[in-house]
C-alpha cells in the first residue's frame, strides 16, 4: 500500500501531470468564480480533450479542475452573496456578512485555508476508507438515505431557531417546489400548468442565485452604498488572520471535514445536505451560536471545511463500486471508462497507484490554489469597498450568466428573477430562506427514497437499525433546539423583568 501511495505521488509530480493539473486549475479558477458554470459544466466541456491521455493525466486535469471550482465558487459567495453552486449556499450565511462588516480579507483567507484543510481530510478519508468502504456503502439502502435527507431538513429547522415554525413552513414550500415537473415514478406531470419548460422541474442554480444574489443586488441599488457599507472595520489585510482562524478553530474545521467526507461517501445525498449538517453541528458546538448568520468565523469555517472534504468522500463509492454520487463524479466515471479503467476491486489492487494518485491530486491541487489565490485575495476583498452602483451592472451579469449558463435557457433567468422576488419578500418580512432552498434541493431525493423504501419494504423499513439510529438523532436535534429556545426565552424574560 505504501509503495502504491509513493508511486501515485511520483506519477502526479511528473512534469506532464503537473502541467495538465496547472491548466486544469487555471480553467477551474476562472470558471469557478463565474456562478452557474460550476465544476460539472467545466468538466463536461473539457472531457473530450482527455481522449487518448493516460489515466493519471486525465485525473490530474479533470480532478484538479473540479477541486478548484469548489474552492473558488466560495469567493463570489463571500464577496457578493452570490453562491456559485448550491453547495456554496452555506458559505453565504456567514461569509457575506463578514464582507459586509469590512472583513472580506479575513473571510476569504478563512474559506481558502479551511477548504484546503477540508480537502486534506477528505483525501485522507478516501485513502483510509478504500479497503473497508464496500460493506459500509452497501449497508445504506433507500430507507437510510431517506432518513438522512430528513436529518438534513431537521438540522435546517434547528438553524432557524429564532423562527422554527417559519423554517418548517419554508421547508415544506421548498419540498413542494422540488416536486414541480414529471413524477419520475408514474410519469405524471405535477404543478406544471401546461408549461413545457416546467416538465423537467426548476433548476437549482437559478433558485440559489436568485434567493441569495437577487436581494443583495436590490439592496445595493436601494442603499447605493458599498457591500461593506459603513463598516467600522476596513481590514482587507486580514487574509492571514483568516488563515490562522482555521487553525485556531481546528475542531470546527475537523468536524466539518469529517461530516463532509462521511456524507459525501453516500451517493446522491452529497454536498447540499452535508454543508448544512456541518454548519448546524458547528452552531450546536459553538460557545457563541448567536453569532451564526451575522458573520461568525466558525460558521464560515464549517462551510469551507466541509466543501472540499465532501469531494474526497464522493470519490469513494465511485472508485470502490462504480457508483457516482454526483454529476461531477459521473463525469469522472466517464473519464475512468474512456481511459480504460474499471471501477471496483481492480482499483484497490492492480490500479491502486491510480487511486492514490487521485488522493494526491486533491491535496496538491488545493495547495496550488491557495498559493495562486493568495495574491488575488486583497484586490478581490477591495471590491467590497467599491461603491454599490459601480458593482450593480457586474453583479447583474453574474446572476444572469449563472442562471442561464447551466441549461442555456432563458426560462432559468425568469426562475432566477422569481426566486429573487421571493428572497426579497423573505428578507423584508423576516422569513428564513435557507430551509426553502434545502427543501428544493432535497425534495426529489426525499420522495424517491421514500417511494423506494415503501415499495421494497412496506412500512417495516422504519424498524431497520440505522433508520432507528437516524430517527434518534432527529429527536435529539429537535429536543436540543426546543430546550435551547426555552432557555433563551427564560433568559430574555428575566432580562426584561
Amino acid at each position, binding site marked *: 500500500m505504501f509503495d502504491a501511495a509513493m508511486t501515485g505521488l511520483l506519477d502526479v509530480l511528473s512534469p506532464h501531470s503537473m502541467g495538465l493539473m496547472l491548466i486544469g486549475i487555471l480553467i477551474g479558477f476562472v470558471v469557478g468564480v463565474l456562478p452557474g458554470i460550476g465544476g460539472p459544466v467545466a468538466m463536461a466541456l473539457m472531457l473530450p480533450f482527455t481522449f487518448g491521455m493516460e489515466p493519471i493525466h486525465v485525473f490530474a486535469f479533470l480532478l484538479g479542475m473540479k477541486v478548484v471550482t469548489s474552492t473558488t465558487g466560495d469567493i463570489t459567495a463571500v464577496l457578493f452573496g452570490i453562491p456559485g453552486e448550491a453547495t456554496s449556499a452555506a458559505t453565504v450565511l456567514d461569509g457575506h456578512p463578514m464582507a459586509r462588516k469590512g472583513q472580506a480579507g479575513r473571510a476569504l483567507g478563512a474559506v481558502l485555508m479551511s477548504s484546503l484543510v477540508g480537502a486534506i481530510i477528505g483525501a485522507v478519508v478516501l485513502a483510509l476508507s478504500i479497503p473497508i468502504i464496500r460493506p459500509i456503502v452497501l449497508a445504506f439502502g433507500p430507507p437510510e438515505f431517506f432518513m438522512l435527507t430528513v436529518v438534513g431538513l431537521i438540522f435546517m429547522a434547528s438553524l432557524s431557531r429564532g*423562527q422554527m415554525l417559519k423554517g418548517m413552513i419554508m421547508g415544506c414550500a421548498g419540498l413542494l417546489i422540488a416536486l414541480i415537473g414529471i413524477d419520475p415514478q408514474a410519469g405524471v406531470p405535477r404543478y406544471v400548468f401546461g408549461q413545457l419548460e416546467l416538465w423537467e422541474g426548476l433548476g437549482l442554480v437559478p433558485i440559489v442565485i436568485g434567493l441569495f444574489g437577487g436581494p443583495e443586488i436590490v439592496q445595493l441599488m436601494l442603499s447605493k452604498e458599498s457591500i461593506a457599507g459603513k463598516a467600522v472595520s476596513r481590514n482587507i489585510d486580514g487574509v492571514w488572520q483568516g488563515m490562522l482562524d482555521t487553525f485556531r478553530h481546528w475542531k470546527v474545521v475537523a468536524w466539518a471535514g469529517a461530516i463532509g467526507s462521511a456524507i459525501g461517501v453516500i451517493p446522491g445525498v452529497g454536498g447540499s445536505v452535508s454543508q448544512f449538517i456541518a454548519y448546524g453541528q458547528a452552531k450546536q458546538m459553538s460557545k457563541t451560536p448567536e453569532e451564526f448568520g451575522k458573520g461568525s468565523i466558525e460558521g464560515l469555517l464549517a462551510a469551507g471545511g466541509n466543501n472540499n472534504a465532501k469531494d474526497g468522500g464522493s470519490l469513494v463509492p465511485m472508485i470502490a463500486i462504480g457508483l457516482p454520487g454526483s454529476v461531477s463524479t459521473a463525469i469522472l466515471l466517464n473519464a475512468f471508462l474512456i481511459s480504460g479503467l474499471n471501477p471496483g476491486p481492480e482499483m484497490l489492487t492492480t490500479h491502486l497507484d491510480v487511486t492514490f494518485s487521485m488522493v494526491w491530486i486533491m491535496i496538491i491541487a488545493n495547495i496550488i490554489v491557495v498559493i495562486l489565490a493568495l495574491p488575488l485575495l486583497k484586490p478581490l476583498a477591495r471590491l467590497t469597498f467599491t461603491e454599490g452602483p459601480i458593482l450593480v451592472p457586474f453583479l447583474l451579469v453574474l446572476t444572469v450568466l449563472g442562471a442561464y449558463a447551466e441549461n442555456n435557457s432563458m426560462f432559468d433567468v425568469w426562475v432566477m428573477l422569481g426566486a429573487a422576488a421571493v428572497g426579497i419578500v423573505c428578507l423584508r418580512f423576516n422569513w428564513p430562506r435557507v430551509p426553502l432552498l434545502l427543501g428544493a434541493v432535497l425534495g426529489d431525493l426525499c420522495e424517491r427514497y421514500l417511494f423506494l423504501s415503501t415499495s421494497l419494504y412496506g412500512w417495516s423499513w422504519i424498524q431497520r437499525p440505522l433508520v432507528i439510529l437516524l430517527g434518534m438523532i432527529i429527536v435529539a436535534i429537535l429536543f436540543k433546539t426546543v430546550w435551547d429556545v426555552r432557555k433563551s426565552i427564560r433568559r430574555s424574560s428575566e432580562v426584561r423583568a
Partner: protein
Amino acid sequence: MTNAPMATKPQKRAELGDWIFTLALLGVMIAAYVMTFNWPASTAFFPELLSIAGILFLLMKLASLAWTTFGGRAALGGASASKAAHSNGEVALAAEGDEDQGNEDEFHKVFARADRRTWAEVMGWVVMFFGGMYLVGLLVILPVFIIAYLRVVAKAPWRVCIIYVIGTAGVMYAVFELFLHLPLPEGILFSGE
C-alpha cells in the same frame, strides 16, 4: 418610551406583511393539495403529505399571528406586547428573530426604509435590464445598461463607462462566444424566430 409611537408603524407594517405572506402561502398550500386530487395515488402521496403538513404549520402560524395582533396586544397594550409574546412560543421566537437576524436584519432595514419612489426607480432599472435582454439580447442591452446606469446613478465619467463595457461585455463575449462556444441570451428580436 417616547419613541414608542414611531416604532409601532413599521411594526404594524411588518405584521401586515406577515399576515399577507402567511395567507398567500396558505393559499398556495391549499391549491397544491387540491391539485393532487386528479393524480394517481402514488403520484399524489408525497405532495399530499407535504401540503397537509404545510397547511397545519401555516394554521399554527396564523393562530400565533392572531394572538399577537388581537389577543396579546389587546390584553396588555402595545408597549408590553413583547412580554406577552413570551407566553407563546412562536410569537416570542418571531420577535426574537427580528432582532437576531444579523446580516439579514441589515437587508430588512434597507428594504423597509426605502420609500416608494426609490423602489420604483430600482424596479425601473431592473425592468430595463431584463426587458431589454428579453427583447434585444444580453450583448446588446449590457453596454446600454452599463452606460446609462453608471452615468445616471453612479455619476461615473465616460472613461470608466467605456472601460467597464469592455471589461464585462467584451470579456464575456471573448470567454463565452469565442473560447467556450457557449451561447449567451439572445433577444426575441434578433434570434430569427
